[in-house]
């Protein structure tokens, strides 16, 4: 860093202020923010992306935590068997969308439906048991002092009989050899990738149609990241799961997903096919504030 680069900028900025632009620049911010919201993709685009047959829809959602409203008029469509990735700068409200779908936020307005059924007000238990939505938390949510097998059995806690949960757990073990090898070990000894696998498969025990996946790559070593996306890809292609995902690593997420949404400040700024957005220089600009 050169000596002039830091302090030198002061002049430029003050020049703006002296020209009376101090408040104008603020208005400029507001104007641009509103422009983004106004320019946000119309519902038709969202419907088209979802193949005009959405499984999960969100309309005009206003949601947040306590007195902090995070989502403003948010809409979303994802079709059966599709994957949708939410990307956007930090604090844009991506995870809040997942929380709202699962029933962990305060919803002030709007509607969430699954397969045409209004599920806006349902709690997590009903979402899991009746609607078929499961949630994979971001970052390390295994029960560290329980064995791998016990962790999976907890995934089937809502099943009517413990035996059903055991059958489901066996199914997981059949599918993922790596977990089967460690079934009697406490989950805290697993590697990062194995933990993430356990978290995902634990959510699968209830056989959900929709998987909400929060930041699958966060906190993972690079070599595990692609493994995790392979697992998710397999679930989507071969088991027909619908996946709604939030991903910090926008490139990875958009590469993976059929549909990509870009959120800025709690509002939908762009929507398109994942591969399309990947190539779009506008996305990068949105991340850095236009």
């Amino acid at each position: 860093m050169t000596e002039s680069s830091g302090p030198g900028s002061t002049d430029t900025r003050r020049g703006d202020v002296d020209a009376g632009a101090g408040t104008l620049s603020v208005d400029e911010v507001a104007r641009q923010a509103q422009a983004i919201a106004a320019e946000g993709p119309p519902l038709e685009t969202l419907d088209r992306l979802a193949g005009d047959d959405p499984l999960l829809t969100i309309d005009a959602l206003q949601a947040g935590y306590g007195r902090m409203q995070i989502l403003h008029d948010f809409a979303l469509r994802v079709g059966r068997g599709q994957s949708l990735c939410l990307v956007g700068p930090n604090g844009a409200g991506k995870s809040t969308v997942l929380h709202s779908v699962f029933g962990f936020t305060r919803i002030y307005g709007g509607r969430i439906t699954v397969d045409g059924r209004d599920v806006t007000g349902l709690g997590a238990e009903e979402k899991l048991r009746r609607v078929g939505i499961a949630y994979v938390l971001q970052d390390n949510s295994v029960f560290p002092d329980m064995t791998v097998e016990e962790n999976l059995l907890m995934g089937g806690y809502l099943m009517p009989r413990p035996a059903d949960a055991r059958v489901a757990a066996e199914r997981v073990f059949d599918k993922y050899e790596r977990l089967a090898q460690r079934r009697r070990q406490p989950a805290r000894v697993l590697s990062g990738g194995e933990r993430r696998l356990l978290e995902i498969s634990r959510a699968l025990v209830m056989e959900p149609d929709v998987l909400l996946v929060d930041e699958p790559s966060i906190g993972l070593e690079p070599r595990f990241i692609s493994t995790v996306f392979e697992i998710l890809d397999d679930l989507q292609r071969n088991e027909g799961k619908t996946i709604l995902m939030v991903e910090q690593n926008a490139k990875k997420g958009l590469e993976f997903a059929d549909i990509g949404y870009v959120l800025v400040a709690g509002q939908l700024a762009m929507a398109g096919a994942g591969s399309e957005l990947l190539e779009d220089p506008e996305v990068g600009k949105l991340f850095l504030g236009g």
Partner: protein
Amino acid sequence: MNAIAGRVVLYGAILLFGIAGPYVFPAYTQQMASLWLFIVFALSWDVCGGQMGYNSFGNVFFLGLGMYTCAVTQVGLVYEVSEYTSARGGSAEFAFTSGEWLTGLLLGLPLGAVVAVLGAVVFGMFILAMRGHYFAICTLGLGIAAGELAAGWDWIGAGSGMTTPMSPSALGDTNVLLYYLAFVLAVIAFVFFRWLYSTRFGLAINAIRDGEEKAEAMGLRTTRDQGHGLGDRGRVPRRCRGHLRQPQDLHRPDRRGFLRCNVRRLDDPHGHPRRQGHAVGAGDRGGDLPGDEGAVLDLPARLAAGGPRAADRADRGVLPDRDPRVPARALPPALRPRRGRGGGRGRGGEMSAMLEVSGVTKAFGGVVANDDISLQVAQGSIVGLIGPNGSGKTTLFSSIVGYHPVDSGSIRFEGEELSRLRVPEVARRGLLRTFQQTRIYGEMTCTENMVISADLRKAGVLELFRAQPRDVEQRAGELLEFVGLYEKRRERAGSLSFGQQKLLELAMALMNDPRMLMLDEPTAGINPTLINGLIDRLTRANTELGVTLFVIEHNMRVIMNLVGHVYCLAHGQLLADGRPDEVKNDPRVLDAYLGAT
């Protein structure tokens, strides 16, 4: 006027009752004496528990020290204590004359107070380091242990306790005498605590209860203030203890005695709306967890704090783009930039950096959060710090203001090395920070929040006990007006909306005439339409008050329009810096945000 008249009538009635009590209800003299003492216990418990947030179950310990000291003094002046107690104070040969009794009392009262204060100081050294429930349980143990000790110690009468009846009584009914002693003590205690809470010290202990970390960040020396608090607690209850040695039950080691001291706030005529325990005001707490994960966990707390709709409404009312009553160029004198030390604002490259971070590295258990970071903030500038989640921005802020030691490197502020200073010391040099989650004192009014934030750099111990100077309150009002919260100055800060709390926090920081403010995501969690007002205030704080700003901000759109120079961190390293548009177009920055493949 009506309020004052009402108060005069109330206090007058209480005084009248206190004075006339024994003559109107002679049969209840003893009970009424106990009433006054309970008031004293409550007041003294309140200073530590209610005001400072150190909830004690063990005031009975100090009570016991006082009463046994007084009783032993009284007995010891005349008789051998062990002989007296082995006779269980019952026999006539151990009676006191009025003179002996009074002398003992006059000596025993101050002695009891001194011993109790000594006890508070000695134990305070050990137990004040504990917080919250550990402190509560520890004091519970302390009180009961002392009671059990007394109950087993024959020298002071073991389970039977001590009593010192005066006989023959030349002073009339001793119950009446003791009643008036108790009454006078209650009046003294009441006046004393009223005075105490009107001083800076009173506000300071409040601030400690609301958030010790915040108090430290504002430059309060918390351990010193806590010491005073416990000392005060040491004082009053034991002094009063000596008085009522007569009713035997109060003298016996009482396993449940602390309950009496626990009758909280028997009276609180000050009308302070805030003296609820810290725990009750859940509104602004529970924000320790970052981002969305935290949000799930402290959902109940936030829900309890009220919904955002009302908040939004309120925000709009208070955050016009520009407050029409404060024209930008016509600020009151107190608000004009104070250009003490720096000698005015420098220009461009001619001047050296105000804050200079060079080669700072900080790792947490193997994870390198900051790796060889070097950056500069020029005086009078607004500099931004951006970077994806987990890139180490907040860690850098914390290193600068002294929350944790750095592993290597140097941090210089106006030429002075900061990296070995602690939080209050850094704050006193005029370098302040705000937090992602607001850290206001939710149970205090806005004005009180402002006043307690006022510069304590020069305040000595004596000044702590003076009343708030006028000009401090005046400046508080002016700054509240500056951020547009003047109408809300008497409201509880915790009742403000999130956006208003952010503004209050800004005003509180400005109260200290900071040389430089470090703002951690000032617009996080604020409705986009309300951000403008905050940005406007920040810009004006910079141009009109001459405060240098160093801002972490996620809302890139805002930072591009607010700052003149921006640094970008990624994976704990300095990735790029330059003018906003340069950084914005830097492909490395873009890559860092989008996630490398």
